[in-house]
């Protein structure tokens, strides 16, 4: 998604400031930025009998390159708007495609502060089979993404989790190491002046 019109960018800013004000966090003077955060999880570790996987909830125990944040809540003065969600299978040897397979029926749920803000959104909605608000075409079938129709604000100090529910428990040989990306407008802590 390139050259977003200014109005579309400003929507994210307005929603972010409104939501954080309602929660008592005055964020207007913080530094505006673009944020991309991610977490990675191998969901084919044997023996595997589960079909539900939480992302971001355990990033504090992970090291680079598994994640680029250290806690699943933002520091005071920081926050972001989730505008794009990318699901990538980064397994390098035999990555299973995530689009145009039943793995596309994987359901995405996003929870912010105990509220569910994305409910059972299948990867089918992201791309490949369907692209309901498509991003630029992916260069392979192992990743897919969506630009959300509304802005979802993660305020500072509020925990967030992304849950993936896969249709069947993946076999160890399936080759699925999911990485979940959130991308959007954000704020960085800036006690003095901003740029």
């Amino acid at each position: 998604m390139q050259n977003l019109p200014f109005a579309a960018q400003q929507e994210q800013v307005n929603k972010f400031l409104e939501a954080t004000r309602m929660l008592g966090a005055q964020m207007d003077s913080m530094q505006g930025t673009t944020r991309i955060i991610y977490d990675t999880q191998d969901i084919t570790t044997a023996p595997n009998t589960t079909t539900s996987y939480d992302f971001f909830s355990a990033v504090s125990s992970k090291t680079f390159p598994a994640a680029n944040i250290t806690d699943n809540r933002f520091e005071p003065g920081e926050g972001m708007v989730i505008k794009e969600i990318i699901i990538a299978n980064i397994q390098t040897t035999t990555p299973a495609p995530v689009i145009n397979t039943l793995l596309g029926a994987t359901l995405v749920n996003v929870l912010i502060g105990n509220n569910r803000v994305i409910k059972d959104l299948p990867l089918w909605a992201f791309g490949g089979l369907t692209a309901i608000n498509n991003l630029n075409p992916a260069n392979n079938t192992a990743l897919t993404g969506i630009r959300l129709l509304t802005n979802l604000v993660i305020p500072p100090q509020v925990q967030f989790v992304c849950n993936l529910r896969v249709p069947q428990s993946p076999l160890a040989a399936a080759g699925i190491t999911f990485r979940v990306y959130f991308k959007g407008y954000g704020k960085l802590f800036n006690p003095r002046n901003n740029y």
Partner: protein
Amino acid sequence: MNVAQQIVGVNERLGNFAVPQMQGTTRYIYDAQDGVAAVNSGYSFFQGVSNRVYPLANINQNRFEAGESLAVQGIQLFTIATYGSATNSSAIAVPGAFPTTAVVNLFIGNQRVLKNIELGVYSLSSLGKSIVPTATVPQGGCGIFLETPIVIPPQVEFFVTAQISASIAATSKVFCALWGTGTLLNPKETY
């Protein structure tokens, strides 16, 4: 009028004044039926969805809970062949090419709000702004973005009927999806 204003306007006319305080979201709901191995067969989606088990559907009844609603901005049909033979989620067959003419109707609260929309042949060409892009045409089915959003309020039943000209093997599944901007129940603050 934007999509959010239409959701609020429709709900307020039905007496749901709390909807502006609900959580805005992006929703995509779908339901699946067995293929019917006969030409010009009729399908009914979302009615009886409570009998379907995930991943055949991602909702459990054909009405939204209190506080939930959906402004339908697009509709799609697609098939998955040899659905039952899959043993591993990553090994299931690529969705088949969608067959020929398919006419759909959307009903909300006993009213028909989409009337005999032809999705199949129309979108196979992948021409036009309203066509749902797919990775490999015509794999992935057929679908269009609607020219106007259609709001499904909470607690009101909805269903889709389809008539498909081609025979679809009974081992395949036919999926119907609706998507758009929605609301989720949120009794406190929104994010």
